[in-house]
C-alpha cells in the first residue's frame, strides 16, 4: 500500500522538484525566504498564496472525480460567492465592521452550500451525468453572479474581509492557512471516517457498492457540497484579495486548473482511487509553472501554451497505453494493444 502511494506520487513530486530546481538555477534566490515586518516573504510563499484558491477547489474536485463525477461549476460558484459577499458588504450600513465581514463570509459559504446541494441533487437524485449537470450551473452561474452585482464590479473596503485573501497570521498569509486547514479537514474527514473508502467504492463500482448496502446518494451529495463550499471559500479569497467582486472574470477557467491539478496529481478521471496530497502537489506544479514562465523570462502570454503542453505530457505519461508503449520499447516484447480489449 505504501509503495503504491509512493509510486503514484512519484511522478508529480519529481515534476515539481524539477520545476523548482529549474527556477533555482535561473534565480539563485528563488528558494530563499526572508522575514519582513513579521511576515514571511519569498517566491515559494507567493506560489502557495497565489495557488491557494486553485488548491482549495482542486481538493473538492478530487473527491468529486473519485466518485466518477466532475464539477464544471466551480468557477461560477467562485463568482457567485464573491458577488454575494461583496454585495452584502457594500449594501450593509456598516461596511467596515468585523460583524459585516463575518456575515459576508457566512453568506458566501451558505451560497456554496446551496449550489452544492443543487448539483448533488441533479447528479444523485435526478441521475443526470455529472458533466452535464454541472454544465447547467456553469452556464447560468455567471449570469446569477452578474444579477447579484447588477453587472458592475462591486468594490468593498473592509479590512477584516480583506485579510482573508491578503492578510497575514503567524507570519504566514491567511489564505495559505485556510487552505492548509481545509486540506487537513478533508484528509481527516475522509481517512479517519470511512468516507474515503466509500467514495472510492462508489467510484470504482457503483452497482456493487449499492448491493453491498452503500447509500451512494448521500456520498455523492456530500462530495458535491464539499466541492461547492471549497469553491465558495476560494471565491472569498479571490474577491477579498482584490477587495472587489468581478462576476465576469473571478475564477474564470479555475475549474480547468483544478481538474488539471487533480489529474497531474495522479487521480484518474475515471474515478476510484484518489490522492489529496497528489492534488496539492498537482496544484503547486501548475502554479509553479506560471512562476517559472516569469523566471525564465518567457513572455507571460505564453503561460497558457506552456500549460497546455505540460498537461498533454503529463496525461500521456499517465495514459496506460503510452506507458505500455514505453515499457515495450524498453524491454518487453508484448504489444500494448492487447490489454485494451482484454479487460
Amino acid at each position, binding site marked *: 500500500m505504501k509503495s503504491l502511494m509512493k509510486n503514484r506520487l512519484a511522478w508529480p513530486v519529481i515534476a515539481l522538484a524539477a520545476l523548482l530546481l529549474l527556477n533555482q538555477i535561473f534565480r539563485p534566490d528563488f528558494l530563499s525566504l526572508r522575514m519582513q515586518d513579521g511576515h514571511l516573504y519569498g517566491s515559494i510563499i507567493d506560489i502557495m498564496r497565489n495557488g491557494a484558491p486553485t488548491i482549495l477547489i482542486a481538493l473538492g474536485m478530487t473527491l468529486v472525480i473519485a466518485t466518477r463525477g*466532475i464539477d464544471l461549476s466551480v468557477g461560477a460558484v467562485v463568482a457567485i460567492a464573491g458577488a454575494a459577499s461583496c454585495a452584502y458588504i457594500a449594501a450593509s450600513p456598516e461596511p467596515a465592521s468585523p460583524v459585516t465581514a463575518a456575515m459576508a463570509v457566512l453568506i458566501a459559504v451558505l451560497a456554496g452550500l446551496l449550489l452544492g446541494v443543487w448539483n448533488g441533487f*441533479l447528479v444523485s437524485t*435526478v*441521475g*443526470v*451525468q455529472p*458533466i*452535464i*449537470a454541472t*454544465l*447547467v*450551473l*456553469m*452556464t*447560468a*452561474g*455567471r*449570469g*446569477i453572479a*452578474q*444579477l447579484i452585482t*447588477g*453587472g458592475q464590479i462591486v468594490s468593498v473596503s473592509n479590512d477584516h474581509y480583506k485579510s482573508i485573501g491578503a492578510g497575514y497570521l503567524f507570519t504566514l498569509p491567511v489564505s495559505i492557512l485556510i487552505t492548509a486547514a481545509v486540506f487537513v479537514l478533508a484528509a481527516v474527514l475522509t481517512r479517519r471516517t470511512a468516507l474515503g473508502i466509500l467514495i472510492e467504492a462508489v467510484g470504482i463500482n457503483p452497482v456493487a457498492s449499492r448491493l453491498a448496502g452503500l447509500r451512494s446518494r448521500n456520498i455523492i451529495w456530500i462530495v458535491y457540497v464539499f466541492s461547492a463550499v471549497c469553491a465558495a471559500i476560494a471565491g472569498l479569497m479571490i474577491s477579498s484579495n482584490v477587495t472587489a467582486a468581478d*462576476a465576469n472574470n473571478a475564477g*474564470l477557467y479555475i475549474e*480547468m486548473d483544478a*481538474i*488539471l491539478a487533480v*489529474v497531474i496529481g495522479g487521480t484518474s*478521471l*475515471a474515478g476510484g482511487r484518489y490522492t489529496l496530497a497528489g492534488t496539492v502537489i498537482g496544484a503547486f506544479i501548475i502554479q509553479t509553472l506560471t512562476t517559472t514562465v516569469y523566471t525564465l523570462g518567457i*513572455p507571460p*502570454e*505564453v*503561460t*497558457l*501554451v*506552456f*500549460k*497546455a*503542453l505540460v*498537461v*498533454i505530457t503529463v*496525461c*500521456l505519461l499517465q*495514459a*496506460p*497505453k*503510452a506507458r505500455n508503449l514505453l515499457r515495450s520499447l524498453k524491454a518487453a516484447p508484448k504489444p500494448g494493444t492487447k490489454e*485494451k480489449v482484454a479487460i
Partner: protein
Amino acid sequence: MSSLSTLTPLTVKEPSPLRSRMRGGARYAPTLATLGLFIAMFAVGAGMYPSFLSGQVFLNLFIDNTFLIVLAVGMTFVILTGGIDLSVGAVVALSMMVSATLLQQGWNPAAVIFLVLVIGGGLGLLMGLIIQYFDIQPFIVTLAGMFLARGLCYVISLDSIPVTEGFFTSVAQAQIPLPGDLFVSPGVLLALAIVAAAFFILHHTRFGRTVYAIGGNEHSAMLMGLPVTRTKILVYALSGLCSAIAGVLFSFYSLSGYSLAAQGMELDAIAAVVIGGTLLTGGTGYVLGSVVGVLVLGIVQTFIAYDGTLSSWWTKIVIGGLLLAFILLQRLFARKTA
C-alpha cells in the same frame, strides 16, 4: 452435472409494429420539442412586440449566429460519437487572430483563409489522434487544446487587431437581397451550405452512419468491422475545421481579431446541440436539431434585446435554464424508452 438446457419455456414477445413505429417516432421527440419551443417563443415575441413578427427578425437570427451554427454542426458530430470538444471557442479566437494578423501584414485573403482552415483542422486532427491512440478522455485532451489555442492567441497579440482588408470588409458589409425587402449575409449561405453538407454526410454516407454506430455502441461498431478509429479521429478534425470556418465567419462579422473573443462559446455550442435534441451519451440526434438549438439561443438574446429592461446576464441564466429543462426532458425520454 446435467444442465437444464433443453427445455427453456418462454414465449416470443415481439412488439407490435405500431409500438415499434411509435418508438421510432420518439427519436424525433426532443428535436420536435425544441422546434415547438422555438415557434412558441417566436409567437410570444410577436404578441408582445409587433415588430418582432418580421421576416428580417427571423433572418437576423441566422445572420447574428452564423459562426455558432457552424460550431454546433462540428460539435454535433463529436457528441454523436459520445465525445466532447471543449476547444472550439479557443480555436475560433485563434482563427480570428491569425486572420487579422496576416491580413494586416498584407497576405492574400484566400491564402489566409486556407491557412486558417488548415490550422483548425490540423489541431482537431491532432487532438483526435491523441484521444484515439493514447486512450485519453476527449474532455481532457480538448481542454488542453483549448489552453493551447487560447495561449497561441495571447502569443500573437494581447490587443484587438482590426481587419481593414478589402475582401473581408466587403463580405462583412455584403447583403444578399431576398424577395420582400429581406436580406441575409453571405455567411448565412455558407453556414446553411455546411449544415446541408453535414446532413448529407450524417445520413447518406457510410462515414456518417459509422458516427451514429460508434455513439450507439463503440465496441459493437468495432466488432462489426467498422472503421472506428479513423472515424473518431476524423470527427475531431471535422470539429476543428468547423471551428476554423466559424472563426473566419466571426471575423467577417466583427472585422477584428481579439484573443479574448469567443470566450465560453464552446458552452453555447454544446448547449445548442443538447437543446437541439442530441443525447450527450451519443448515438441519437440530428444536425438540423442543433440548428434549431442555435435559433432558440438566438431568440433568447433577441428577446432580451427587445425587452430593453432585462439585462444581458439574463441570457446566460435563461440558457442555463433551458439546458436544464432539456436535460431533464432527455432523462424522461430515456426512462420511457428504456
